């Protein structure tokens, strides 16, 4: 639908010799509607509209500048800006130390599967990786992790029937430090912003583990709650990176702009399937193209 909106915008602009206030308004309405259908946060959409309106009105466009291209560029720039820039950025792995990454996110977002994928990716690059299952709540969480990485010889530390996530995490870290691994990935239980007790547990876990970075895993199809949910996670435990999952579906991923806005973290990778290799580097321009059709 955003591609239809962009086409509408292009048609409108190309049919008129000048882009007057009325045309600009109708273009902005088209754009707003399309961004909302892509699940971009309402306040963000209003902000983008204001920015585009302001820039366009202030701009002293020289004669002969293609107004269509200019409006499209303004839209593109706004969205790229929200993502923190055009460049791709990966997880920073420091050599010579034990890098600890803790994965958090809402129930069912894809944390456990993503832990497996990140472990596989880092192992292929020659790093020694260990996984710790600190999810003491979900039935068969440990078995799920073990099955995910079984054929790739990635060790998983967990305590069957364990109830203390902090204790298990610390035991797991010590276990892998002794083995001299480069990277430890910690899987945690799903939780959302209304579950204050679980947010508290996540805080305790983070302060005990003292991770190199906390990674927020978020489902691409999340709607208008994205901002407030991400903000709640960030206020409990500062988020360093974001991974967006399930982009092999039809979700446009507009909610993920909000996750970036709420945490100040950049999206590093995206999940594009259920297999262990279905993880790609995040590419801002192609993500913007997806949101804008």
């Amino acid at each position, binding site marked *: 639908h955003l591609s239809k909106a962009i086409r509408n915008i292009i048609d409108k602009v190309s049919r008129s010799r000048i882009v007057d206030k009325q045309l600009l308004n109708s273009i902005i309405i088209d754009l707003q509607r399309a961004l909302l259908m892509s699940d971009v946060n309402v306040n963000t959409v209003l902000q983008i509209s204001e920015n585009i309106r302001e820039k366009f009105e202030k701009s002293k466009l020289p004669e002969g500048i293609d107004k269509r291209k200019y409006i499209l560029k303004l839209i593109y720039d706004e969205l790229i800006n929200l993502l923190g820039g055009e460049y791709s950025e990966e997880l920073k792995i420091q050599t010579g130390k034990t890098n600890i990454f803790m994965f958090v996110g809402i129930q069912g977002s*894809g944390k456990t599967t993503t832990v497996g994928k990140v472990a596989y990716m880092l192992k292929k690059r020659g790093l020694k990786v260990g996984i710790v299952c600190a999810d003491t709540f979900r039935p068969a969480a440990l078995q799920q992790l073990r099955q995910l990485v079984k054929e790739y010889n990635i060790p998983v530390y967990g305590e069957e029937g364990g109830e203390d996530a902090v204790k298990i995490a610390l035991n797991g870290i010590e276990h892998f430090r002794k083995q001299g691994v480069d990277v430890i990935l910690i899987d945690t239980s799903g939780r959302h912003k209304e579950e204050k007790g679980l947010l508290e547990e996540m805080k305790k876990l983070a302060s005990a583990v003292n991770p190199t970075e906390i990674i927020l895993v978020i*489902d691409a199809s999340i709607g208008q709650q994205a901002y407030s949910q991400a903000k709640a996670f960030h206020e409990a435990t500062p988020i360093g990176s974001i991974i967006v999952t399930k982009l092999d579906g039809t*979700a446009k991923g507009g*909610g993920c702009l909000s996750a970036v806005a709420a945490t100040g973290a950049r999206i590093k990778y995206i999940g594009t399937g259920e297999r262990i290799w279905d993880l790609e580097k995040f590419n801002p321009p192609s993500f913007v193209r997806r949101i804008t059709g």
Partner: protein
Amino acid sequence: RTLSEEELNRYLQQLSIELISNNVAVETCDAILSNIRDQLLGSKVKRFLNVEEYLRSLVKDAIIGILKEDISYPRIESLISEKLKSSPGEPFIILFLGVNGVGKTTTIAKLANYLRKRGYKVLLSCSDTFRAGAIEQLSIHAQRLNIPIIKGEYGADPASVAFNAIEHAKARGFNVVLIDTAGRMHTDRNLLEEMKKIKRVAKPDLTVLVLDALTGNDAIYQADIFDKEVGFDAFIVAKCDADDKGGILISLIYTFKKPILFIGIGQSYDDIEVFTPDHFVKKILE
């Protein structure tokens, strides 16, 4: 006085921001507000009417209309009883489908508990033979709830596990069979074909689409494709405790006119609630 177009648009714009912020789908919001707009454009209103309050009450009425007009919310007990009466010896078969991670397995455990507490003899069919840990996950629920389960090997044909479960149910006098399936993207042709086959073999009395309450506009696309390709009868929306505004519930009923049977409101077995439009409307309009 006459309600001017400019004034009307200004208030409707504000209301649309509110509805969309509460996760009502854009097209549903458009439909609600354009209806109101058509009713009111150029109409006469009391001289000192508080237009904003008046519009807000019209929106409430519209939502109530969407949730309650020409749609019935059957109690699952009556659906089951009807079947047990009309076809004795045949279990009531419920097939669950939905995209990855929405809450199917947990919802099935909750519903199994709900039905067992009401005296039904429930059998679980673990027809997710794909996802890591899926069989163990449902088996642990079965064990905790003391509910029998039929499972297969990883990689087995999900339809054949369902078939075995149904045969077992008939032979042993189970009233209800709940069929869990692997999460799947509505964009995956092969997995859609697999689901069609499961449905062909199992011949369910009720097919339930499970959705995540936090999903945005994509929920509409998911439901649309699943309905066109596989066909389903009702919704269960899980994780409503994460989004108390519940705008998605309005969008689903408006777009598909199918009932929401239950909502999931947490991760414990008791965290399942019969969806009643009256109760919901009271909550969403506080």
